């Protein structure tokens, strides 16, 4: 989805006076929220407090940067990642992300490379075991979301792949 299309969506949501709007499509995630009246009361229901995450302390600031590793990745995607046919490979385990089989070897893949299902994309090391992470689609690697040797949590986006063949 390009900027123009996003703008159109925003105008439409505004026009229709929705309080909240969320759209996820692959890697693309859009969330709009209007601040006017945060408390919603539906007929016949007890007053519901907004299930906003509890702000307990300024630890928030610190840990949200950690917990948000996965969730924040999407909203900060670059323009070119906002595509409808984008497939995101996430980490199936907690561990350390390595782009190459050894410190001196070449990376498994680079941005722009074409991959097939089964092509090894990276290694996630957990408990001294090197887990090779294969691609499950055919396509072109358009973004690598994690730096080499960085920790990753379960479900964290690693690669964005534009599905297709060269």
């Amino acid at each position, binding site marked *: 989805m390009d900027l123009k299309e996003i703008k159109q969506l925003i105008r439409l949501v505004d026009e229709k006076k929705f309080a909240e709007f969320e759209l996820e499509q692959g890697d693309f995630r859009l969330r709009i929220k209007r601040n006017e009246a945060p408390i919603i009361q539906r007929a016949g229901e*007890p*007053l*519901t*407090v*907004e*299930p*906003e*995450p*509890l702000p*307990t*302390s300024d*630890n*928030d600031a*610190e*840990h949200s940067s*950690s*917990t948000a590793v*996965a*969730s924040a990745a999407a909203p900060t995607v670059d323009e070119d990642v906002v595509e409808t046919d984008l497939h995101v490979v996430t980490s199936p*385990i*907690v*561990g*350390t992300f390595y782009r190459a089989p050894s410190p001196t070897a070449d990376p498994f893949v680079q941005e722009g490379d074409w991959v097939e299902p089964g092509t090894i994309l990276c290694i996630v090391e*957990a*408990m001294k*075991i090197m887990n090779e992470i294969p691609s499950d689609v055919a396509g072109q690697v358009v973004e690598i979301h994690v730096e080499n040797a960085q*920790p*990753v*949590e*379960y*479900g*964290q986006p690693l690669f964005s792949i534009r599905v297709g063949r060269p």
Partner: protein
Amino acid sequence: MMFKRVLIANRGEIACRIIWACQELGIETVTVFSEADRDALHVQLADQAICIGPPPASQSYLNVPAVISAAEISDVDAIHPGYGFLAENAHFAEICEACNIKFIGPSPEVIRLMGDKARARAVMKAAGVPVLPGSDGIVETDEEARAVVRRIGLPVMIKATAGGGGRGMRIVHTEAELPGALEAARSEAQAAFGEGGVYIEKYIEEPRHIEVQILADERGHVVHLGERECSIQRRHQKLLEESPSVVVTPEMRDELGAIAVRAARQIGYTNAGTMEFLFDGEQFYFMEMNTRIQVEHPVTEMVVNADLVRAQILIAAGEPIEFDQPDVVLAGHAIECRINAEDPETFAPSPGTITALTIPGGPGVRVDTALYPGYTIPPYYDSLVAKVIVHARRRDIAIARMRRVLEGFAIQGIKTTIPLHLGILQHPDFVAGRLSTHFMEHYAHRRSDVEPAASQPSSVRSVSSEA
């Protein structure tokens, strides 16, 4: 050397409790969470939180490689396992050791020994701890079983050596029932624990469940912190605990405590632990030892004015216990109610979103909970949502206090067991301290006698069960 950073391998109130203890010690906290717990309080309280897997516990909180890997990437010095999940998993403790991460609990060997109920019984017996008359270890044949029964007399209880939670258990009242019961217990144990070994113990009709809390540091210093009575149980799940027990005299406490301390020394126990006993009105009999912090630890904290989780962390860091046995004085009386997100009548789980929450204050009131208004309780884990603990100078005042706290404790959006607890608290047998582990069966029985249908005892007020 004090830890710089600790990983908490748990969730819910105990994860918060451990984070609070770490914060008071100036230790950074890392917590793990499943995808279902992204909004959980423990995730928000910790300095760092790592998603380790999808909602099912087997793939997240029970997933040893995921937890260890999280500990490695966050570079922690130690792991606190809380209770449940990996807390009594000797294999996990071993891996921690191998990875040079301190497991906050006893050694893997001690965890393994105490996890084998028949071996634990034998070791405790050898250490001078009174155990129920019964078989010497696992009973293989019907003949053996019959011999044991003739020696110790009926009724007897058949128990799985790998057991827990009441599974693999059978009560036998006549010799004729014996072969069938053995068979049933073995296959149930095999199915539940993958291990069919069973042993036989004398069965006590109306026992009290009384347990002794100990702390042992890594310098050979062991203290006990008196007893807790946990006789109010439903299907082997404790509902309400208190300290001290009304039947334990100071002399009995000293004696039982001394036995526990001696046994702990003998088996090389370290960190916090609990020895559970049955009391038949005259004597105590060792049942099992829990090698972890227990849900009901706060009642002990209230009466002895100690912080057991702090003590666990300090002990694991090699520090000495901060007090000596003579400093341990049980003052007043404490009661804990475990508030579950369950229908108080049917005990069906009641997950949902908390729409209102009011926690009463005042003297001698403590509420440990991971709830907050707007929080949605996921359906994947156990139903304990809050522990309400009260403390007062006397047991009767503590009971009155617990009643007013539960009546004023508003949890909206889910059903809770608060009405059940209010019913127990005003039951004449409870008020008089006439307790046994069958209290709840009698209670349910009497209710169904006196009040048919689903009506509650008249003064059990449905405080929080209306959504």
